[in-house]
């Protein structure tokens, strides 16, 4: 398949099930929302070493938040309910509760319950107050600037982690421009996030490695500098830079929509923009049960 001169490889992105949740963080100003969210989603790029993958889904205007203040929706994904609960409690406790003026609400209603305020209430040292409003329970935890309002629990949803596509570009500048265009497009898709820095991964990985104990190591097949040294190299001649976009979503449909939006944005730049081809990371079916075939996604 060719889109605007860009070759779309006939392959699939291999993804795996993850448990995810959505949180809504609000504060007095968008800047304080951003401060809380950046902190909460920091070091949450890959479950390989971070415990969870998280990013802001979208900013929320005051009209869309429970307390009519500026806010943001954040998605967090982990490999199990227990790990998700641990990460939610730690990150909300250390990064949202600590941030001036914030409040935190559940962004999902249906699904297994994950403690939110229920995990943090004891910080109130006995002065915390539960309040049921509109059938939902909140904890009011006294803090130094007043009160931290936090919904008691959120819900988990079985989502998809590791949706991806890979941009092969003539040079680093072209690759970065294409990746940034894709990031902008994907951030407009509801239910999906890009957990890596700026939404882009430059150190894509393969499963295992030469050294004992390595869960993952550099994806040698896509390292341009190893093109002539690695027999299984997948780097065509004329490609100097390769970037990957990794997508987590609350559903298969959300990931597919995000991939479609991202690849379309890359293809819009076209061969004239230095994009040679788009492919995807698959691991021969060893990684997960979800497969997103690029040609089907773009059909």
């Amino acid at each position, binding site marked *: 398949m060719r889109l605007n001169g860009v070759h779309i490889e006939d392959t699939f992105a291999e993804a795996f099930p993850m448990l995810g949740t959505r949180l809504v963080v609000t504060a007095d100003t968008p800047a304080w929302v951003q401060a809380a969210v950046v902190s909460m989603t920091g070091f949450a790029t890959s479950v390989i070493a971070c415990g969870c993958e998280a990013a802001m889904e979208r900013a929320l205007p005051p009209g869309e938040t429970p307390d009519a203040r500026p806010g943001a929706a954040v998605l967090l994904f982990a490999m199990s309910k227990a790990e998700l609960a641990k990460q939610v409690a730690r990150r909300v406790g250390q990064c949202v509760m600590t941030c001036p003026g914030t409040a935190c609400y559940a962004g999902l209603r249906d699904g297994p319950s994950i403690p939110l305020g229920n995990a943090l209430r004891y910080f109130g040292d006995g002065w915390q*107050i539960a309040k049921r409003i509109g059938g939902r329970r909140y904890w009011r935890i006294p803090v130094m600037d007043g*009160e931290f309002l936090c919904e008691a629990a959120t819900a988990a949803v079985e989502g998809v982690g590791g949706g991806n596509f890979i941009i092969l570009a003539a040079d680093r500048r072209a690759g970065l421009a294409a990746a940034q265009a894709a990031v902008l497009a994907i951030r407009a898709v509801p239910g999906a996030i890009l957990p890596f820095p700026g939404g882009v991964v430059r150190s894509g990985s393969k499963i295992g490695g030469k050294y004992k104990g390595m869960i993952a190591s550099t994806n040698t097949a896509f390292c341009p500098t190893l093109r002539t040294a690695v027999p299984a190299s997948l780097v065509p001649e004329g490609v100097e830079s390769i970037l990957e976009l990794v997508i987590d979503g609350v559903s298969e449909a959300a990931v597919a929509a995000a991939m479609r939006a991202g690849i379309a944005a890359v293809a819009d730049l076209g061969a004239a923009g230095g994009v040679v081809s788009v492919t995807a990371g698959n691991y021969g079916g060893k990684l997960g049960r979800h497969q997103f075939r690029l040609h089907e996604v773009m059909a």
Partner: protein
Amino acid sequence: MSGAVLTTRDSSGPPIDMTGVLPERLAEGGREALAGLMLLRGRERHRLDTLFTLEDGGPTGALVLRPGGAVLDGVGTGMTAGDIRVEGDCGACAGSGMRGGALTVEGNCGAFAAAEMAGGSLRVAGDAGNFLGAPLAGGTRGMSGGSVVVAGDAGDRVGERMRRGLIAVHGRVGSLCGARMIAGTIVVGAGCGPDAGQAMRRGSILLSRAPEAIPSGFSDGGMNDWLFLELMRKELIDGGAWPSGFPTAGTRARRLIGDRSAGGIGEMLILSEA
């Protein structure tokens, strides 16, 4: 299936105990099941259809009660589902022990309305008597769920020993509002009598103005922003339970914490001082 309209045949005489006259019974057995119910009037037991005329009418599956001048006690007692509308006044214990459904009183209701209520909603267009949402005589726990909205005034001991749920009184309440309250929320639109919150352990009493004297077991927590008020206001405005005298914007209020003499950390929030 249409609803049923019950009109009192004889408005003189002692109160009629309406225990068991519920929409559930209409749904299960139809009008016949209702007609055959035995009700106490004073010391005597009567078939329901000797005390009331029964007609089709009202919303599907709902009961409409027209008491005339008769006193109907225990309307909606133990109700779990459906609707009851009382076109007039209720006697004592309206909605007591209610677990679900909706009870609407277009007039006033007597003492012990919503006593030991666990769910559902009670709306009173007029005034309510003493012990609104409190324990029944001999009981140890008051209201444990559901919502009560009184458009007029209410008597003494509103929400006594209340554990969960919401009581909103648009008018004034008497003494000992929220006394020995365990949790839950009481909203009072037009001031309360003495000793509000006495021995309360937890819970919130939202007031339009400060009590005439701050109860001795309460300490003044000063002014602050209480974000949950924004959520509560949205919810209560939708349910018609946000008194007209309360501010419609902002989250600032003065907070009194107590009753410390009982080890309590409940609160009285004075909204008008924002």
